[in-house]
């Protein structure tokens, strides 16, 4: 060790590795990510590709509702639409962070140069994934707009609970980023199957986080898992802010401050665990020469 808590040869230990450098790294990563994501198509096609998936997901649920009930209960439709719209952020955040690492290692073969540069890896990854999060945000907004125009989902922007919404979204984004960072580190260790991890994890969380159905219908053991995850509280807080009412059932038993507190605590725990995991994964990748491994996946 060189007395700074860094490994010898760690380029982020060079003089000048400051907060300013980290911010510039985030900005550079974001510009790079946006160029990679958007430069292959014209803007209209790009928008269509970006929003078709979430809109279709919401329409599947509305079709189910009409098949079962013969009519669309406005509250249930709103529950579906808001849950589907917000879930874009989880998919976008996880895919952005994991694919950023895998693309740069396997496809563009630039990851080793990021490790060599004085900038730290984490700000670069956060910036690199920002484009996907922006696309996810666009998908969320358009899904809500489709819900408004075609399905009668009314969100009153003047009377909605903006403080609760902003706080929930801000903490929720930290939770998504934390999970994505840990998964990115994990995927450095893996071969072909690494590309499937974001979808697998997002799919598992989709099942237990109360995205499209209340957690009450889950088996008891899974309800406990749901209540331990920040994503359940993030969705609940954001939904309350947008729709003005809690989800019926278990979640209705918690008031707004409790929802925010549970979100904060669960996010803090997840962030801490993810940070430790990421450091461990990166160190292991260095030790085993995985930074520039190409698996032809």
């Amino acid at each position, binding site marked *: 060790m060189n007395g700074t808590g860094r490994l010898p040869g760690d380029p982020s230990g060079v003089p000048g590795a400051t907060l300013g450098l980290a911010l510039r790294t985030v900005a550079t990563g974001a510009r790079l990510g946006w160029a990679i994501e958007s430069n292959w198509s014209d803007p209209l096609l790009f928008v269509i590709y970006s929003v078709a*998936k*979430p809109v279709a*997901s919401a329409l*599947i649920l509305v079709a189910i509702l*009409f098949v079962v*009930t013969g009519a669309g209960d406005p509250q249930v439709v709103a529950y579906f639409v808001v849950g589907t719209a917000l879930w874009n952020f989880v998919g976008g955040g996880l895919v952005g962070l994991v694919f950023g690492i895998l693309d740069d290692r396997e496809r563009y073969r630039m990851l080793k140069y990021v490790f060599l540069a004085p900038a730290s890896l984490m700000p670069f990854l956060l910036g690199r994934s920002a484009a996907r999060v922006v696309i996810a945000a666009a998908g969320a907004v358009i899904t809500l707009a489709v819900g408004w125009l075609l399905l009668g989902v009314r969100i009153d922007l003047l009377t909605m609970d903006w403080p609760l919404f902003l706080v929930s979204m801000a903490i929720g984004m930290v939770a998504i980023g934390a999970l994505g960072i840990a998964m990115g580190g994990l995927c450095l260790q893996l071969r*072909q*199957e690494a590309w499937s991890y974001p979808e*697998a994890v997002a*799919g598992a969380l989709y099942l237990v986080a109360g995205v499209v159905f209340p957690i009450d219908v889950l088996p008891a053991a899974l309800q406990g898992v749901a209540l331990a995850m920040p994503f359940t509280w993030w969705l609940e807080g954001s939904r309350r802010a947008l729709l003005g009412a809690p989800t019926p059932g278990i979640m209705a038993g918690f008031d707004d401050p409790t929802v925010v507190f549970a979100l904060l605590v669960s996010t803090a725990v997840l962030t801490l665990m993810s940070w430790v995991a990421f450091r461990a994964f990166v160190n292991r990748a260095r030790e085993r020469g995985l930074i520039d491994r190409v698996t032809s996946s």
Partner: protein
Amino acid sequence: MSVYAGRHDADATRAATWDRRRVVATNLRSVLGRAYPRFLGLTREPSWLFFEVLLPLLSTFAFVFVYRALQAPEQYVGFVVLGGAMTAFWSNVVWGMAAQLYWERDGGNLELYFTAPISMMSVLLGMAFGGLVSTSLRAAVVLAIGTAIFGVTYGVTDWAALGAVFVLTMAALYGLGMLLASVFLMWGREGFHLSQLLTEPVYFFGGVYAPLRALGPIGALAVSILPLATGLDAIRQIAFPGPDSAGVFPVPVEIGILVVMTVAFGAAARLSLRTLERLARREGRLTVRWR
């Protein structure tokens, strides 16, 4: 003396002065050769159990819980389990067929295919054959687990019709995959994003998680152009007889639609492969990477 004899010709197959029997035998070997890695992948990469069984199961479970949250009749759970199993085939068509040539180009295999004295159709058929066999196993596992966990009961009485619908659905689906493979090759990265576009929207228009009749005329249109929609609608009518399972069209009509699709997609795949190969050669896209 080499059979190529230093002649210039349009492609490697024409340059090889083989008799018909040898051409057929070589192409059949190509079919098996391209299918082989997909068979072998079942044992070499057991991680498929996790990703290709668990992922469809997770989606299936989520939609089962949606139906249960809405207190829907239990028959809908069977609909969802069947739809979840069929998504394995659609995923394989989109990612294992349509996007495959694009990936083969990035990996450097595509140029080898084009320089070998074989028809590209045999490569596509091999991909389809291998994908169909390996995906059938995955879909069967999804169906078995979903059926066991949620206690789904089926009321199939006409097994011959069920078999015919399944075979025709697979033929039409993989014919569509062969068609899309050559289209995606030209579109490059746009094709990759198109693959993503062909998941949830197709699950909606294909009636994977909700019966198509709920979509009215859109459902009828979907049955006319999407083999997944046609096959699933027919299979549900056969597997769950009763008024709740009324399809968009009667089963014999949907069988007829599947026959037409099979022929049309196969012919279109052959035509489009020739056209797009010519265009790709002219524009130098056969070896270009990362675009």
